């Protein structure tokens, strides 16, 4: 798995950007893109959400979409997840069997099947992604049950396994998410999404409402999981530090358009576009 190796190399901070680029390029030639987006445009009435977006996402790659608020990041993410159709353009997804789907033309049934099997969606606010009146175990097991798992013992087993993976104590399995702290809720949401081994996870500001120490732990956890499971991730964030820690590649958006794209370290260390330079220079230096 060249991609996994490339991912490992990239996420270890020691390697240089140039060698990574070569590694990644080699790896990416081997496999076709998981998701290819061409000319995607979305208008909210007269107002432009995003315009002429082209991008490719390869298996095992973490792609960050960064930009200021209102730059169309979340619009783009929602379009890619098929939550609403774009005004123009096409989004193709290659599923586990290698079949290419046009996301905009998917039937509701297929889209929902993808959402509960091959995709995951991590919301900024865990309350949007969790069932707050169902115990943690039930939350984790839901996708498995939706996929036809009918064995309580096995469901319980995988719930416990995933709780330990996201570092939640096993004795909290029967507590409702409302009894959890914000950081634990977010970790639970991640466990709930990853339990059915998705191939592609959409994340909308996963560290949004968390304090800095919890953010750091969560990022660490995410980085591990992404590497272990060879996940592809589309990560929306306004936080460049998060993007640098997690993402292999990033696209910088402004006013609904991509202004710069490239490997994370390359974009952050040597920003070309004036707007990216502004973003990078505005990172608080600790």
């Amino acid at each position: 798995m060249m991609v996994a190796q490339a991912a490992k190399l990239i996420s270890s901070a020691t390697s240089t950007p140039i060698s990574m680029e070569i590694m990644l390029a080699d790896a990416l030639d081997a496999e076709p893109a998981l998701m290819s987006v061409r000319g995607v445009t979305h208008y909210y009435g007269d107002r432009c959400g995003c315009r002429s977006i082209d991008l490719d996402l390869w298996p095992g790659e973490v792609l960050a979409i960064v930009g200021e608020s209102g730059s169309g990041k979340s619009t783009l993410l929602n379009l890619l997840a098929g939550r609403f159709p774009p005004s123009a353009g096409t989004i193709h997804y290659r599923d586990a069997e290698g079949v290419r789907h046009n996301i905009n033309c998917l039937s509701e049934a297929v889209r929902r099947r993808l959402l509960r099997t091959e995709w995951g969606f991590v919301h900024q606010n865990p309350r949007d992604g969790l069932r707050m009146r169902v115990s943690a175990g039930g939350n984790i097991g839901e996708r498995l049950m939706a996929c036809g798992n009918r064995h309580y013992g096995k469901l319980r087993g995988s719930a416990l396994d995933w709780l330990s993976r996201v570092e939640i104590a096993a004795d909290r399995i029967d507590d409702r998410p409302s009894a959890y702290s914000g950081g634990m809720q977010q970790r639970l949401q991640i466990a709930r999404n990853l339990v059915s081994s998705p191939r592609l996870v959409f994340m909308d500001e996963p560290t949004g409402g968390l304090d800095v120490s919890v953010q750091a732990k969560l990022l660490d956890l995410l980085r591990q999981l992404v590497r272990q499971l060879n996940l592809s991730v589309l990560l929306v964030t306004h936080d460049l530090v998060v993007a640098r820690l997690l993402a292999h590649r990033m696209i910088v958006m402004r006013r609904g358009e991509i202004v710069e794209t490239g490997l994370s370290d390359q974009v952050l260390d040597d920003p070309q576009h004036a707007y990216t330079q502004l973003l990078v220079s505005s990172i608080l230096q600790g």
Partner: protein
Amino acid sequence: MPAPTSKAAGQATGQSVVSYNFAYMDEQTKRMIRRSLLKAVAIPGYQVPFGGREMPMPYGWGTGGMQVSAAVMGKEDVFKVIDQGSDDTTNAVSIRAFFARVAGIRTTTATVEATLIQTRHRIPEQALREGQIMVYQVPIPEPLRWMEPSEAETRAMHALEEYGVMHVKLYEDIARHGEIATSFDYPVLVNKRYVMSPSPLPKFDNPKMNQCPALQLFGAGREKRIYAIPPYTTVTSLDFEDYPFAVQRWDVPCALCGATDSYLDEIITDDTGARMFVCSDTDHCARHAVARDMQ
């Protein structure tokens, strides 16, 4: 002002039931309900919306069941009403008297004699036969409602057979109580397609719905939904492989008739905590007691 006119006409002809059409509702309404019933029978377990009418009693007392009964009732029908298994509670007596008056049909408390049985929360212990119609009063027809509050979403879930959340509910039961503690309104899968709420029947009665020779109709008056199980339809209760569906059991027989195979109600008999268990199905209990005394 149609009502006074018809009353006046009725008085002129001297009939006993003059103010109302046969079985209370007007023929157009009955046709509308029958159309919904036909669709419901054609798609077992699917909730068909219908234009529920106001009935002369509050929602929750069986308005849905009464509308379905009125729509399928004929002059030859023998009508039985049970409320929690009992033929002699206020609700059962009133509904029986109501239809005896507005339709002039024969009523009974004997399950074997009845052709049309309206029921609240029980299926008679006596096995049903072909030609009988069971009419269930349903308070909340949507089995997914407790997990998903949006009606649009639950409809989509039914359409796409997305029933994982029903098992989440059962999972929660086992996680909290160590067993599936849902004892009534236990969700069933009808004809291997639609998950259906069997109205708040005790789960003891769930197996009786499977391959039942009688036609089973469900009416929810407040929610304005009708659904049905045609005769000889497969009805399975949802469960887990390692926690299979099981019905309630009692350690004692019925205190009145000695039956060991029926659903028992617990009755508190005094202030010191004395209690007895008796059959909830009064008709079954009485017959069983008579048979025992004859022996």
